[in-house]
């Protein structure tokens, strides 16, 4: 795991991102435990509270569950639930785009065209 102190992305975010990828891509399997909070803090030379915050973030996303006295265990990754979660993210991003479009005075069609254009760009 690579943590950058100066990237501008909060450290807890970087840790959460890294574990999320590990879980979603199957490197961390159901029933496995995340490293202990203080052990990870020690290994990464960061504070305990930062590690804790990223674990709590993952817990809120439903990826892991806190087990009293044992740490954080990786949950079973239900396909639908995952999709739902991702859907929520997509909606969030689009809402933001709509807001900005309103301020810029774009019409509905113009917005949809922009989205299509971006999609083609990405595919190529």
């Amino acid at each position, binding site marked *: 795991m690579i943590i950058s102190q100066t990237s*501008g992305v*909060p450290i*807890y975010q970087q840790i959460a991102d890294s574990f999320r990828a590990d879980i979603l891509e199957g490197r961390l399997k159901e029933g496995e435990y995340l490293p*202990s*909070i*203080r*052990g990870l*803090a*020690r290994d990464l*030379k*960061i*504070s*305990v*509270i*930062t590690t804790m*915050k990223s674990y709590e973030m993952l817990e809120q996303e439903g990826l892991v569950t806190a087990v009293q006295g044992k740490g954080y265990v990786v949950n079973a990754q239900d396909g639908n639930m995952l999709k739902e979660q991702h859907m929520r993210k997509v909606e969030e991003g689009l809402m933001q785009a709509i807001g900005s479009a309103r301020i810029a005075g774009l019409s509905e069609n113009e917005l949809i065209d922009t989205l299509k254009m971006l999609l083609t760009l990405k595919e190529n």
Partner: protein
Amino acid sequence: MDFESAVHGEGIVKKYKGFELNVPVLDIPQGFATALIGENGAGKSTLLDILAGIRLDYQGSLKFFGKYNDDDRENNPDVKNAIGYEGTGNYYLPMWTLKQGREIQKLLFKNFDESKYIEICKQLAVPDDESKKITDLSDGNHMKIKLAGVLSRDTDLLILDEPASPLDPLMRDKLCDMIREYLQRDEGKKSVLFSTHNIADMETVTDYAIIVENGRIVEQAFVEDLKEKYVVVKGEKVDEEAARKVLYSISSSNYGFEGVCLSERLNELAGLNTVVEQATLSQICVAIMKQNSKLYGVN
């Protein structure tokens, strides 16, 4: 965030001529490293001395590990031994050698692990020659043997008074590692409370910050919560006057301004050409101290 308190204090008051330490409520979270931050003379050492039982002349009540009061701390060896204290003073008589310094710890503390002490001394590069007098050590080395002493005891709470100030940058880094290692030892049971007037060195190990100014606690929270509460804002010279009304604290140069803003007031800056960044703990501390310090209060 909810947490258990390693130390809980209420109505702690200690008066000196021209100075008063007054802490209505104090909580040191269990399982974390807490930094007591403030200027010289803000009352940090006094507070630590009160918590560690070095001073007994104070008002107020204390509760340790959720169940023991300050009489237990003085009279119950289990509680006394669970608290490790390291102060800025000179603990050893002038004629003592390093060897005698080690032996006295063995006599004084039943939970002292001698082999660990020797190991930590080695890690911290304390001079090998044990026949050397402790008085002849540099300030840095003196602090190292005191830290080695307190870290090699089996304790649940460490109270360290300015541990970083006499150390060089390399050793400060080692100190941070040792604090993390200590916290990990008994996942979530052990706590560290240290004071510092230079938070930048200890930032990466600080979980909970208590900022003291002139005998009062002016801010206390987990570092991540503080970073959500305060953000850094940078902008152009033209926007300075408008921003000044909103920002918590501001410093300006010929080219622009930089300041700390409460997140809840960020929307008031809409329309200004500003950049918002995450704040570091030291930026937050400086801003808070600026607001509360007597020295800066004049401006």
